[in-house]
């Protein structure tokens, strides 16, 4: 194995500084100066950055505030933390010096999945849209942390996946002994993030095995694959996975729905890359 599981878990436990993207920080700084900007507008901007979102959810679910594992959306976190705390948290975020291509692809993919979750929930009138969209934004956080903490090793994993034409999670399992969904679960446990985020993050490849809330996992699975289908996969060789029966059963969707979803998502994603 390229990584020792226990060692890596220990490393995660010490993970303190989650870097944020400079573009988000710049926008936030501008917003802070403008008194007419509302909390929900700030929430929208934060909701585009995995690391900032994670930081905020980590803080509000920490034992210090006294309701661990309860808060799963940025809107709720902003209400409970308050403007000053969020401001401090964001201003103290470390900035990425440069964004590598890996990063950019992964960020675009995550944001795409988050938007796709929102679209699916809206079209099918599924409740908890913001929560599911957050799970979508964070679903690949395990990859993010792996790239962040073990860049050289993870590059080998990505190369191995490309060379043998393997899905990334299988390559991770072969070469690391665990995959990025497990890493996401460790983080969720460690930081007392709600199950309602952790479950879809952990089961986004296999919603058929998902614990409750299974609907969350189903939506994130579909969103992940639709996003890959429109060419915004996390990796160059990202593959659309075969759809388990549970997805069409629980969502009660047909081919026409999926085709329309692709069109709508493409339109949404154009505004992101701009």
């Amino acid at each position, binding site marked *: 194995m390229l990584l020792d599981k226990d060692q890596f878990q220990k490393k995660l436990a010490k993970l303190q500084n989650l870097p944020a993207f400079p573009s988000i920080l710049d926008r936030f700084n501008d917003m802070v100066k403008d008194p007419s900007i509302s909390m929900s507008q700030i929430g929208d901007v934060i909701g585009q950055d995995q690391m900032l979102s994670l930081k905020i959810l980590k803080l509000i679910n920490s034992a210090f505030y*006294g*309701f661990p594992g309860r808060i799963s959306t940025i809107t709720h976190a902003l*209400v409970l933390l308050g403007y*000053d705390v969020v401001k401090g948290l964001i201003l103290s975020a470390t900035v990425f010096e440069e964004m590598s291509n890996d990063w950019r692809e992964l960020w675009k993919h995550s944001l795409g999945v988050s938007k796709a979750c929102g679209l699916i929930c809206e079209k099918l009138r599924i409740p908890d849209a913001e929560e599911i969209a957050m799970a979508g934004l964070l679903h690949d956080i395990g990859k993010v942390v792996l790239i962040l903490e073990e860049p050289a090793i993870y590059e080998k994993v990505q190369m191995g996946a490309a060379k043998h034409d393997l899905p990334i999670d299988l390559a991770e399992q072969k070469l690391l002994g665990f995959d990025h969904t497990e890493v996401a679960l460790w983080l969720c446990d460690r930081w007392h993030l709600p199950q309602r985020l952790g479950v879809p993050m952990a089961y986004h490849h296999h919603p058929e095995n998902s614990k409750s809330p299974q609907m969350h996992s189903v939506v994130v699975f579909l969103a992940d694959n639709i996003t890959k289908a429109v060419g915004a996969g996390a990796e160059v060789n990202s593959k659309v996975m075969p759809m388990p029966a549970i997805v069409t059963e629980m969502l009660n969707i047909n081919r026409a729905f999926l085709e329309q979803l692709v069109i709508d998502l493409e339109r949404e994603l154009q505004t992101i890359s701009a």
Partner: protein
Amino acid sequence: MSQPQKRIMILDPDPARAERMVELMETEDHFAYAVEDMNRAMQQIYNEAPDLIVMTALGDRWKTFLRTLKNDSVYRYLPVLGLFAEGMLGPTTTFEGLPIDDLLLLPLNLDELRLRVRLAIVKSSRYLDANPLSRLPGNYTILQTVQSLIDNKTPFALCYIDIDSFKPFNDRYGFSRGDEIIRMTARIMTNAVRGSTDSISFVGHIGGDDFIMIIEPQSVDAICKQVLFNFDMIAATFYDDEDRMRGYIESVDRKGAKNRFPLLSLSIAAVISVNRNFTHYGEFSAAASEVKKAVKQLDGSNYMVDRRYDKKEGDDPQLALVET
């Protein structure tokens, strides 16, 4: 407004030293007085509690005295500053049996002494009245805040907040999740009040599921609406899916009958100072309780402002508004 002088009690069996301490401590803000024996000290404390005790005598009898004092829930909040001569303390000294709040070493640095005294007094008012659950200030601070606003004739609105259906929630999910609701509610109110740019903004925790907000009268509508909206939005996430979807809690009472309880909601009763001739906190609290009864009759989260109005003798309430 001018702060009343803080009272500092100096406990020292040596009259000459005590006298010197009094001279050192007396400032514009602080009134110091020396007490030489234990009985008189007790008497003085029960008669009119000082804001700070400075102890130079820390023999065993005085330690017992101090422990007795600090064991009492009311006097636990009285800060005690211990003065120690060189050699009395070592690196292994522990303070489990000596419940002082801060210490100073002799010989004294006068500037440091005054700073420590000021800090000890502020610290006690800052932290010691706080509710351990919500960390909000408790009744003592609430009372003082309201009274000083009344005394200064500053217009304010007193809002009583009470969580509806809290008991069935606690029964269903246990007190630990009930505590989470209390903390969540405290945060929502704190942030709503802090978010305004008003100069009067205070949130206190009366106890249990009762809170208080003291805000500017013109902000009552905006802040109450925000608090209610945020509470309803977030409280929903503290239920298990089954109850949340159903929209009510089911429980079995002592007779074995099934009861339905509505989900948590918030009731706020507001009393505006300029509408009334109240001169002390008790009157506000009584008026607010009456309004609270009315607002609790309504389903869901609501707020209600006391529209009753006292005719004032000579003193035009509109003027009171203009003065500030």
